[in-house]
């Protein structure tokens, strides 16, 4: 009922009988997905390793392409009941593949822990375990991680050990964060990609030395796409065989139809909407079987699939309801891609997320309104599946109709945090500042969480390079340049919190440490980048990244049109709040000395007096997120200090062809704020040792006391246009705020105003009744929970219990 209501809001009317059929199919598949236990599948590792052993004499890219093809020729196939799309990540539902070429040390250490670790558990059966251990033994010393560890300079390893920088994910899981040129595979098919590579291959003058590598590159691309075709053809045969034995007439027709589709695509260009969705899924899936990085994203699916939808609609071959069903099948497929990560990396990416982003709305490359019927159908299908994947991003441009924004609000009101809202007004000029052409900038899509890239034209690692922990960096700067936890000295700035005679000296120490940190960060990134380039080149992905075929090289070698990378920065707000507390309480007001404060922080606010000083720091010094200019300006300054250092250094692709070859800031910290906080001692903002850091540019929990408009103003005061990698903000609202159309219109206005102020991204968590009930039993975790009732608002935890109960009752009523 609820979903039907939402669909009507879109202004796009689905035929009720068709719509009534879609949910039952989708609910059936969805139910099975949640029943399946997450497990580990050894098949990719098995066939890949075998091919690696057999082709030792090949150059790495060719050896890998053969291994990829071998996996696709051998991995067991299956199709879920009711599914309308073919292709799976592993040999059984909700199973994670293993990528031994990236790292095996963790597997050998942790395989028996996988079923019982604290989060993201995986079942491993006995045979699979033994096989995987055998495979891992062969890989020992040959992996990407082994190469990185062998080449990283000592000071870089030291700073990784302090936790100021974290790059473990890059070494164990690889790059990812890339978006294929889906339009190319839809238009040309795999046979077209092969033809393009063959043509370039034949034209090479092999007397020229630079063409040696190109030849191998083109041969590898051809092998990879042969693998793709073979995989689809295997499906076609399997589905035809299943159709023969299928008893249910309707399902038999579906299986036979899908068999036909897999016989044509992705080999040939797509000619119907169903073929187009199947082609997108094959390409998107195979890029995730080829390499281990996450955040492989769909890009602007409502744009590139629209012509196929329109053509079928005009021909009477499809209805809105059928399109919603196929899209929902696609999201269920993408939810089946499960990443298994070492425990250390899992803590930064809790919940096995794969960050397969889907971008909707915005404007066309030419600058016109891009919202179309398929945009609304995508939102309908997302509301139907309500899954953590794909990660849905809605672009908002002033040219977009209010009906679209309203539709986004309807989906947000369901309460699973999607879509996230992105501002064209800021992202387009920010990309153009970095050298992206106007047409390409207009065409941006989100990769991973909030990072805008140009579909099919950016290389790897548009995000997630190295985590830089500002709170840890400040702790070390205040401690004379040495880490109190490990004793490692990064660089002595000449002062400490105990000895500084002015706030300027503190800021100078912070700058000194930042300068050194960025030098080490860049050194580490070069080591990892060159190891990735050499050991895990991806011919399949390269075939669908614009520029690679023309230049005859992988994105990692500089094949892409643009090379712009980021690594998230975490704890910026904690560092700013702490610096403000030091400036205000120690230097401006002189309430206590720097030496005394240093002692109190070392004690983790132990004892009654220190506890009271903690309250002073927490409550009396200004905090980011309250529209207090001096604090907000300090936060901006802290981030600028980082930017000034970062912009000095090019990426490893400098001079190799791409535009840019630079890295820029990003605050998409994913769940990294929790482990990043675990290693930081007590901080001067009043934070206890080990507590999580702030997430993205969100305020430190419970310290934003002036409401959403003040928070949005604070966030908009950051140097947002320079944060081309994205500035992340999560906000919580009560369901009542979105319950009525009037409430939704106010939220739409809130978003528009935020973007006018210069905001980048905002995502809404609609607080459920469950949360309110939890807040009653665990008030300490919900200090910032504000409840609003007619003309009166209050912190939930400061209300008498009967009033809280009253609000819970009312909230349910509002829903």
């Amino acid at each position, binding site marked *: 009922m609820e979903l039907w209501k939402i669909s009507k809001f879109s202004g796009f009317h689905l035929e009720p009988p068709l719509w009534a059929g879609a949910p039952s199919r989708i609910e059936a598949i969805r139910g099975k997905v949640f029943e399946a236990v997450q497990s580990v599948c050894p098949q990719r590792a098995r066939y890949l390793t075998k091919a690696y052993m057999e082709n030792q004499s090949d150059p790495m890219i060719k050896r890998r392409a053969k291994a990829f093809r071998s996996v696709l020729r051998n991995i067991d196939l299956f199709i879920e009941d009711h599914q309308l799309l073919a292709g799976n990540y592993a040999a059984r539902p909700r199973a994670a593949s293993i990528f031994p070429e990236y790292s095996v040390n963790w597997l050998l250490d942790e395989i028996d822990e996988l079923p019982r670790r604290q989060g993201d558990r995986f079942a491993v059966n006995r045979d699979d375990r033994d096989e995987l251990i055998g495979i891992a033994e062969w890989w020992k010393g040959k992996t990407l991680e082994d190469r990185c560890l062998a080449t990283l300079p000592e000071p870089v390893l030291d700073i990784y050990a302090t936790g100021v920088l974290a790059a473990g994910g890059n070494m164990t899981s690889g790059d990812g964060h890339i978006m294929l040129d889906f339009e190319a595979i839809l238009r040309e098919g795999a046979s077209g990609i092969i033809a393009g590579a063959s043509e370039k291959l034949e034209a090479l003058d092999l007397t020229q030395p630079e063409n040696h590598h190109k030849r191998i590159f083109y041969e590898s691309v051809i092998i990879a796409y042969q693998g793709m075709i073979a995989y689809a053809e295997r499906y076609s045969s399997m589905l035809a065989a299943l159709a023969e034995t299928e008893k249910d007439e309707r399902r038999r027709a579906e299986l036979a139809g899908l068999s036909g589709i897999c016989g044509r695509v992705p080999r040939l260009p797509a000619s119907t909407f169903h073929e187009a969705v199947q082609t997108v899924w094959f390409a998107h899936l195979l890029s995730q079987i080829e390499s281990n990085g996450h955040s492989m994203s769909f890009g602007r699916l409502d744009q590139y699939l629209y012509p196929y939808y329109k053509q079928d609609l005009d021909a009477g071959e499809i209805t809105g309801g059928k399109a919603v069903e196929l899209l929902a099948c696609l999201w269920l497929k993408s939810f089946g891609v499960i990443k298994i990560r070492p425990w250390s990396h899992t803590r930064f990416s809790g919940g096995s997320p794969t960050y397969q982003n889907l971008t909707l709305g915005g404007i066309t490359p030419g600058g016109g309104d891009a919202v179309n019927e398929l945009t609304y159908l995508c939102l309908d299908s997302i509301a139907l599946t309500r899954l953590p994947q794909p990660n849905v991003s809605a672009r908002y441009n002033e040219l977009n109709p209010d009906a679209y924004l309203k539709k986004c609000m309807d989906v947000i009101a369901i309460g699973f945090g999607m879509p996230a809202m992105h501002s064209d007004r800021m992202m387009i000029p920010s990309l153009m500042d970095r050298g992206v052409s106007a047409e390409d900038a207009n065409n941006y899509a989100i990769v991973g969480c909030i990072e805008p890239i140009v579909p099919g034209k950016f290389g790897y690692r548009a995000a997630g390079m190295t985590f830089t922990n500002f709170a840890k960096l400040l702790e070390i700067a205040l401690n004379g340049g040495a880490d109190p936890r490990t004793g490692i000295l990064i660089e002595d700035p000449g002062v400490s919190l105990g000895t500084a005679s002015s706030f300027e000296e503190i800021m100078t120490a912070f700058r000194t440490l930042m300068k050194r940190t960025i030098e080490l960060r860049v050194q580490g990134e070069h080591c990892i980048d060159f190891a990735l380039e050499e050991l895990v080149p991806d011919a399949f992905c390269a075939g669908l990244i614009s520029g690679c075929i023309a230049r005859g090289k992988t994105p990692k070698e500089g094949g892409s049109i643009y090379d712009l990378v980021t690594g998230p920065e975490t704890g910026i707000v904690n560092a700013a709040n702490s610096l403000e507390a030091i400036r205000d309480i120690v230097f401006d007001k002189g309430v206590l000395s720097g030496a005394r404060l240093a002692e109190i922080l070392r004690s983790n606010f132990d004892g009654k007096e220190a506890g009271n000083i903690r309250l002073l720091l927490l409550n009396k010094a200004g905090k980011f997120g309250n529209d207090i200019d001096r604090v907000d300006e300090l936060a901006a300054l802290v981030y600028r200090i980082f930017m000034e250092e970062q912009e000095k250094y090019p990426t490893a692709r400098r001079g190799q062809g791409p535009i840019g070859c630079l890295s820029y800031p990003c605050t998409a910290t994913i769940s990294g704020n929790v482990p990043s906080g675990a290693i930081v001692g007590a901080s001067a903002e009043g934070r206890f040792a080990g507590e999580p850091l702030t997430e993205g540019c969100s305020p430190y929990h419970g310290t934003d006391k002036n409401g959403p408009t003040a928070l949005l103003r604070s966030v908009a005061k950051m140097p947002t246009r320079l944060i081309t990698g994205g500035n992340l903000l999560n906000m919580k609202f009560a369901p009542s705020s979105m319950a009525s159309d009037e409430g939704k219109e*106010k939220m739409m206005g809130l978003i528009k105003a935020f973007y006018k102020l210069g905001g980048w991204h905002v995502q809404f968590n609609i607080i459920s009744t469950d949360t309110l009930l939890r807040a009653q039993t665990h008030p300490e975790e919900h200090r910032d929970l504000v409840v609003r009732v007619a003309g009166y608002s209050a912190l939930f935890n400061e209300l008498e219990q009967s009033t809280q109960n009253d609000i819970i009752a009312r909230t349910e009523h509002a829903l």
Partner: protein
Amino acid sequence: MPSDSGLIFEIERFATFDGPGIRTVVFMSSCPLCCAWCANPESRDPKRRLMYWKNRCAGCLRCAASCPAEALTAGSGGITIDYRRCDCCGVCAEGCNAQALTLAGELMTAGEVMERVSRDSVFYEQTGGGVTFSGGEPFARFDFLFSLVTEARNRGFHICVETTSCAPKEQIARLSPFINIFLYDIKCIDDAKHIKWTGVSNKLILENYRYLAGNGAGITVRMPLIPSINDGEDDLKQARDFFLELSPRTRIDLLPYHRLGVTKYERLGLAYPLTGLEPPGAESIRRIKTFFEEAGFTTTIGG
């Protein structure tokens, strides 16, 4: 107190229930009424008052030692404030790191208030919002309200005033051309009842309503629903007939009684007058809403 300054006890940003769009509500101190169900008791008197947030108190007792008036004593249940001694100097609140002691009320000029209100102007523009003056009773400090409305007007803001309009008609008439919407509080039509529960006659309130409705002012009626006090059949019929006669197309916001004020009374050291009263049930609220809707009024729950 100069005419362009007054006591403000709260400025609430992102108010979404007190007029159209996203608004900032300026709560002004002082009120001629003394409603038994008042949710903002700190707003009645035109003076500051010390508030004690027991749940925040860290028990350090530094406040008791620092109070120049010796108005604070420590007991087993926390701090006790002797309001006869307390002169609201603010020394204790300044020194309380836990923010368990705070002063309600801040003396501000109209310019200072508007500087704060203007911060959210972009949010007003995008949503058709603006500023709402509330209280207390904003007309109780007419000169200050006049300065505030003038300042808001000069900045082009949409202006709402939440008021009982228990004030001289000349004052109402003078400001009404500048006010986009009066959020007009009507408790009940029966005067004896009004005197009993608010301490004042409603004669002036109803006369001013007649005047504003007759002059085409923008009005949204706000009617609290206090069980057993003003939600009887006669009360509702009288209210309905009054609005039908004067403003048959007006919007009515029904504000069901809630107990959110209880904690506040405790913090202010005041006794809560309606101890045993329970909020109205959902069924009763729906019935009353239907009653007004059937008479042709656009009716909402909670504004």
